[in-house]
């Protein structure tokens, strides 16, 4: 089992969700986060004073998937979230030792 974490541009969230749903991903955890990467935020001007806004809003999606689906899921997210411009975000994969479905107590693959 793997945990796929994607941090994407907020306006791409609907497309990513639809693509994942079409593929058959049944659930995910989504949060509004803020952060920055190479684009280093942006500048806003108020009464002539420039403010560097370091943190820009992003959407973080977390999905626990079967090992066999990892390549497909990451491809889908990258394809749907891509604009080609700086600030598109990142996707990373990490190992998960164990998963338990709270309602039934099912474990691991059965719980995904």
């Amino acid at each position: 089992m793997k945990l796929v974490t994607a941090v994407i541009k907020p306006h791409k969230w609907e497309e990513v969700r639809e693509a994942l749903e079409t593929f058959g991903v049944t659930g995910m955890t989504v949060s509004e986060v803020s952060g920055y990467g190479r684009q280093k935020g942006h500048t806003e001007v108020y009464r002539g004073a420039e403010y560097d806004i370091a943190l820009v809003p992003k959407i973080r999606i977390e999905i626990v998937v079967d090992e066999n689906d990892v390549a497909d899921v990451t491809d889908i997210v990258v394809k749907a979230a891509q604009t080609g411009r700086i600030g598109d975000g990142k996707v990373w994969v990490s190992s998960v030792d164990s998963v338990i479905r709270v309602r039934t107590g099912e474990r691991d693959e059965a719980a995904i």
Partner: protein
Amino acid sequence: MDGYYAWMIVATALVLMMTTPALALFYGGMSRSKSVLNMMMMSYVALAVVGIVFVLWGWSMGWGADGLGNSNGKLFANPFTMWALKGVSHGNYIFVLFQLTFAAITAALISGSIADRVKLSSWVTFVIGWVTLAYFPIAHNVWGGGWLYTHFPNLDYAGGTVVHINAGIAGGVLALIIGKRVGWPKEPMRPHNLTLTMIGAGLLWFGWFGFNVGSIVFTSDSLKDPAKFSTQFYGETGVTFMNTSLATMAALLGWLLVERILHGKATSLGAASGIVAGLVAITPSCGAVNTLGAIIIGALAGMVCAVAVGMKFKLGLDDSLDVVGVHLVGGILGALAIGFLGTDKSPQGVDGLFGKMNGLFYGGDLTLLAHQAMGVLFTIVVSGVVTLVLGLAIKYTMGWRVTDEEEVEGIDFAQHGETAYDLHTPTGGFGGSSPLASAVAKEGVSA
């Protein structure tokens, strides 16, 4: 004359609205989300405190007569001769209340310089002392027949010196005494809700028609003859209403133009600030200039103030919401502009303090400009010194500031036990300044 009294009741209510809620909204939107309630409270509390003080001894010190003023020719008037409006006729209560609202908004204006960091108890103490020692004497000297009025009469239709220069210099001195906010100017302290600021600026503009157009003073001829009274009433209010509108429009555009050139974009905060800058500058001059003069004064005020608000960064002065850059600079500009653009074709020119008076651009000599400059100087010195003494006295006795920790966590909670917004939604819409939001952001740094 009944029409005049009816109008003055409306005008007074309009000026009351300028403090609560207009100025509170204008300032509140510009402050940070963790200190918006404290910012608004400074205006609301100032209105209540100044209002009561005004009736107890303010009227006596500022005007001290059952009419327009107590022409004693002195710097001060006795606070006790008309204590609690003793001897003031009931009909004159309308005019007392009208002047009361001016005193209240002047005190409230100062709060913009010291946003996010001041104890409410110290603010209340300051406001009581400041209106007593600065506002009432200056109003007495400019309007109420005091020393300046007798020796250097100058034109201040609705409070360019008494209200705006007065509050502007006080705000600057107070920001100097109280010091910078924690993190200023390194940390971004951008306005948290510009929609509030836009609403506030619009309401200020609306209320300002009461402020300026209600400030008509009748000549002795008009007071004797109902026909002349009527002619002066609608003739003069027409001009001041028109000039107040035009200057504000020109200032809004002037500010945006400067922004567009210097920073590339015309901003909503620029429009809101331009409105206020224009209103400030036309306040002393709305009865002394013609329509073209009003447009020039407004446009200049918008452009000059748009540049002036940048000075605080060079000076290292945390005048948080630019009381100096807008009210002091705009007020001086408006007061001095009369020396150039004042015309004897205007309401005040026909029967003003100088009889036939003209500014430099209309064939006049330097007299008018010199008198205007004297009014500006007098206000800056009196208000500056009073604020310095009072500000330092409070600093070394009760102290001005909340603790650094309280300031960083938010003065709203520290001083009032409240927070303005509950933006925590089940799907995680954290408020911009919530510690939870930054904790989440730290988790996602590799994004």
